[in-house]
């Protein structure tokens, strides 16, 4: 059932022409970042060659690109999550799901995995692009993998939060602004907190991505991502259930 709902979500996305436009436009933006990084690297490469322990091409190009993508996704994901439930409410299609033999968990997880799959398709161009570097040099596969895993977990966090906000309202625009405000708010609180042990650092998803970005697999960070996503998914399920109570 979850798979069925996820596939429906994907199908609805891919039958709208605007989705294809978004895919193309974002691919262009990602490529721009990549090429800008590559050019900067080529300029400083002679100096790097003189250093004893110079950062490799993966650390110098791939890691910053992933970092930028992580920041960009923070702004982008709310645009995709906004319609998940708010639009079903506005178009009054929710009764179809509520009267079908589905639990709230099915509905929420179906939408969650559907959008996550879409975002995976959206971002799969990035590793492909980075791996073109393998034509000329050796890449650090471990660093690439930890970045990809981190990006996936980070995206799951964003989607879970956006999904919950979308479940609160029947106006997609409000859902988008709400999710964006929360995500950007967490990020700003994180970077503006100067104290080393400030709790804002612990709350910000982007801060937990930093260790993945440097190639470090920290079980604490993985646990944070899993807990953060689970918490918001549970809240969203609760909200869908309340739909049956409050109408």
């Amino acid at each position, binding site marked *: *059932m979850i798979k*069925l*709902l996820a596939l*429906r979500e994907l*199908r*609805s996305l891919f*039958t*709208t022409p605007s989705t294809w436009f978004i895919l193309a436009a974002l691919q262009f933006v990602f490529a721009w970042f990549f090429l800008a990084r590559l050019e900067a690297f080529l300029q400083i490469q002679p100096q790097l060659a003189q250093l004893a322990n110079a950062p490799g091409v993966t650390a110098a190009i791939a890691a910053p690109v992933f970092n930028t993508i992580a920041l960009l996704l923070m702004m982008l994901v709310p645009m995709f999550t906004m319609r998940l439930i708010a639009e079903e409410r506005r*178009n*009054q*299609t*929710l*009764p*179809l*799901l*509520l*009267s*079908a*033999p*589905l*639990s709230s968990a099915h509905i929420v997880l179906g939408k969650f995995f559907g959008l996550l799959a879409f975002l995976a398709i959206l971002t799969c161009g990035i590793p492909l692009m980075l791996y073109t570097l393998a034509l000329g040099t050796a890449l650090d596969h471990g660093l690439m993998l930890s970045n990809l895993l981190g990006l996936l977990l980070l995206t799951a966090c964003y989607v879970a939060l956006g999904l919950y906000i979308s479940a609160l309202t029947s106006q997609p625009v409000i859902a988008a602004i709400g999710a964006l405000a929360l995500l950007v708010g967490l990020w700003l609180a994180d970077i503006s907190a100067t104290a080393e042990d400030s709790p804002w650092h612990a709350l910000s998803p982007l801060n937990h991505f930093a260790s993945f970005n440097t190639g470090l697999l920290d079980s604490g960070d993985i646990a944070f991502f899993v807990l953060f996503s689970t918490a918001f998914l549970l809240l969203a399920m609760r909200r869908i259930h309340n739909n*049956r*109570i409050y*109408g």
Partner: protein
Amino acid sequence: MALPTLSDTSTETTLSARSLVRSFGSRRIVQDVSLQLKRGEVLGLLGHNGAGKSTTMQMLTGCLLPDSGSIEICGIDLLRRPLPAKSHIGYLPETPPLYRELGVNDFLAFAARLRGMKSSAVAEAVSETTRRCGLESVSKKIIGTLSKGYQQRVGIAQAIIHKPDVIVLDEPTVGLDPSQIRDIRNLIRELGDHSSVILSTHLLAEVESVCDRVQIMQHGKLIYDGTTAALASYGGEPNQIEANFIRITEEQP
């Protein structure tokens, strides 16, 4: 119509709701509504706007939880075991729940799978349902591009595609032209041979032509329950369904 004939279950109760109560805030929308429906019966739910018909239907289909009362679908408690109970329900809400960006066939296949149909049976169910609802000519089109009448028919099609035992239709013929209304009425009659159907409507002629039994709601309460024939001759004279409906609703405070 070649439908798989069910075993002789003509007296089986498919839906029974007891003393449903529902409030929104301090406003009591539905109070003490009880319904019983047997297989092969078509029940018309009548009442003025705001009488609580749609709210009652939402509760019967599990979209809304009642404050108190119980609902059984084919003997399964809808409130305690919602998932198995709901697979016996087909529901067309006031606004047909359609994903406008999908094609008609794709959407119907999704609706069938959603109600737990096996994927091997879906293709046949889709082709049979599109035929019954007169959707063959538009089966490849995108739902958003269809006219209101066709969208309404897709809405009916999604409610009946899995051959549910209980079919709940909230104003099924709204927005249709006269010949489509006739087709849909015939279809509802036909559905009533194998399943139980509840429909709400404002058209009394519709009640007369399709319903076996009528219940009238006013201010959230059931104020009349009887066969269509009994309602038509309520005041003693035959064929007075409209006058009798008005009389019954005005007799009540």
